[in-house]
């Protein structure tokens, strides 16, 4: 057996998860539709005044993105857990953190990235300006991977438990608050004309921190859950 490099392992895992996700396209589409519906419900709930909607838009889109990413967390490890793949992964000689990172990245590509692509259309629904839509996309690009990573820890901790879905939300949502604040704050900064870069760099800092720690913590949580 030839030894795989870490990058090779990473790309193999990502490709595998992407192929699996494409086999069950309905799951991806469901998350996306959920996101669109939640965002579209807000104007119906609070009224159609364009000024108010414009101010609300960043918060609404971010909260909806947060909820949508919670929705798909349950699938992150459960399928592999059920068919025994996960146990095999624990035995792989390479670091489990790398495998976990690959799974998180693949998960983000099928559940986070579509949200980012969909967001501008929803922004138009809320009468946002082109500039603030641009910032919204950058903020979502920086923020949604962090959400996936924090969520992965919760998913690993609750693996195979009854009532897992609601429990994951209870554990993960409080930890996601900083991302939500800076993500929505960046777009609001554009609207109010203050500096955007500080928000974005803080989002970037959160992303780097999550990138450094969460794969390792998730791997630890997986070992605890699987023993």
């Amino acid at each position: 057996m030839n030894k795989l490099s870490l990058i090779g392992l990473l790309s193999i895992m990502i490709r595998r998860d992407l192929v699996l996700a494409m086999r069950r396209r309905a799951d991806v589409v469901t998350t996306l539709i959920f996101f669109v519906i939640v965002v579209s419900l807000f104007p119906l709930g609070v009224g159609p005044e364009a000024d108010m909607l414009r101010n609300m838009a960043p918060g609404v889109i971010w909260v909806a993105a947060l909820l949508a990413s919670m929705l798909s967390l349950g699938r992150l490890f459960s399928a592999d857990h059920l068919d025994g793949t996960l146990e095999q992964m624990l035995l792989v000689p390479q670091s489990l953190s790398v495998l976990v990172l690959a799974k998180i990245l693949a998960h983000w590509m099928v559940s986070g990235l579509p949200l980012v692509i969909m967001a501008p259309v929803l922004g138009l629904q809320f009468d946002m300006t082109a500039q603030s839509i641009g910032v919204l996309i950058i903020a979502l690009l920086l923020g949604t991977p962090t959400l996936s990573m924090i969520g992965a820890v919760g998913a690993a901790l609750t693996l195979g438990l009854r009532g897992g879905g609601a429990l994951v939300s209870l554990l993960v949502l409080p930890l996601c608050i900083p991302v939500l604040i800076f993500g929505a704050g960046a777009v609001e900064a554009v609207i109010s004309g203050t500096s955007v870069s500080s928000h974005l760099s803080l989002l970037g800092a959160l992303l780097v921190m999550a990138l450094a720690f969460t794969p390792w913590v998730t791997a630890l949580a997986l070992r605890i859950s699987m023993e």
Partner: protein
Amino acid sequence: MVPWFACSAAIMFVAGLYISFFVAPTDVQQSEAYRIMFIHVPVSILSMFIYLVMAGYAALGLIFNTRLSSMMASALAPTGALLAFLSLWTGALWGKPMWGAWWVWDARLTSELILLFLYLGFIALHASIDDPRRADRASALLAILGSVNVPIIYFSVQWWNTLHQGASVKLTGTSMHVAMQQGMYTMMLAVWLYAITISLIRVRSIILERESKAQWVSELMEIKR
């Protein structure tokens, strides 16, 4: 050890309540309503401190595999959650007459609320895992993760709040009367001792539940009878 802590907690409560209601003078600006401080401040500080202690015990349990420290962590969690709730409750009752609102989105209030959520998450995760060892270790990881996040959440909320130009919330009169200080310290000690007492009693039950198969349990006085 439990009766000792229980007795001293009771004595301190009586002394603290006496000082806070009869000795401490009426505040110039806040009139009598400031007396809520005597319960609000100790409860808030303890609710944060207990989280740190709990995370510390949980980390010890996770790293060194000591069962007692994990049990201690799970015994502290309900007390901490109740104190956090109490802190929010008394804060709201204090805020209404002073700031004119039950709730403001201030950094401290918001982080206290999130602290309550973290406690609830810890308890819920621990309760939903049947195997006690796995429950200990999984919730320990969560507690540590939470304690890392609390400062980040605090600063982000603070920052968010200044951006929104929210209600500026500051306590008036930093120079407190001596009797007020005494009352607060006594109450703080009382709540502290209460928390120790109640979690020691709770940890005794947890030990009995976990070790029900052990030899020494069946030789206990309470069970023999």
